[in-house]
């Protein structure tokens, strides 16, 4: 293994920060959700890199990555369902137009 750990961490941090930018800046709710998926995927790269370099004989790292997959899937399923429901009642998926609390 010739690639040092910091390179993996750097790539994962870069993807995570791009995801943060997307979540904060995009107006379309679906685009925000895609950026969120990017962030979760970056987290997983980070987890697995630490597992491989830190404790490869212990399976725990992969166990946690599996749970991140579950969270990502549940988030996507419910998030997209909420977007569809909001679109049906408000006719828009732009987050600034939709503020259910303010009415």
């Amino acid at each position, binding site marked *: *293994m*010739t*690639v*040092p*750990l*910091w390179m993996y961490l*750097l*790539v994962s*941090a870069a*993807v*995570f*920060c*791009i995801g*943060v*930018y*997307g979540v*904060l*800046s*995009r*107006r*379309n709710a*679906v*685009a925000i959700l*895609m*950026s969120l*998926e*990017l962030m979760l*995927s970056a987290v*997983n*790269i980070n987890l*697995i890199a630490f*597992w*491989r*370099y*830190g*404790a*490869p*004989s212990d*399976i725990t790292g*992969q*166990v946690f*990555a*599996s*749970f991140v*997959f*579950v969270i*990502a*899937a*549940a988030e*996507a*399923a*419910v998030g*997209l*369902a909420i977007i*569809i*429901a909001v*679109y*049906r009642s408000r006719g828009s*998926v732009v987050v*600034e137009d939709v503020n259910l609390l303010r009415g």
Partner: protein
Amino acid sequence: MLELNATTLAFFVFAILSVGGALGVVTSRNLIHGAVYLIISLFGGAGFFILLSAPFLAAVQVLVYIGAIAILIIFAVMLTRSMTNMAEVVNRQWWLSALVGALLLLMLAVGVIFPVWGDGGLLPNQPVSDQVATTDELGTAFVGGEDYVLPFEVASLLLTGAMIGAIVLARDTEA
């Protein structure tokens, strides 16, 4: 310095795929293109998993993210007709968001990654051993003992809840 061999070459290809795809996701005007970029970025992630000796998670990444979540996102884009005719892709504070992202990256890189795991850093940046746990050990971890059996069942419960909730939300209430 790094020697150039198949592994490092693959690493750089995957790094370009995942970072480039991520940039595509946040910049593309067309959401379907955004979904395609997301898929490219996730492929890069799957490549990393293979390089990191976790091929099972690589296959799961392709299966779950690319096979299911990406499809679901494309369905949702079609359902909400949100693909085009959006005059402005980003909100008014986009430059602020970019600043936040860039600062965060700078902070992580300079403040955490290089001092701790960089060359000559606090912790070793090469693997401590090449004894890698295999996929069937994952199964043993889930159901072999008491360790992860509760999270294992809770994951199932969470998925059930997510599915029921999403069905309730997505369906027409009047139908």
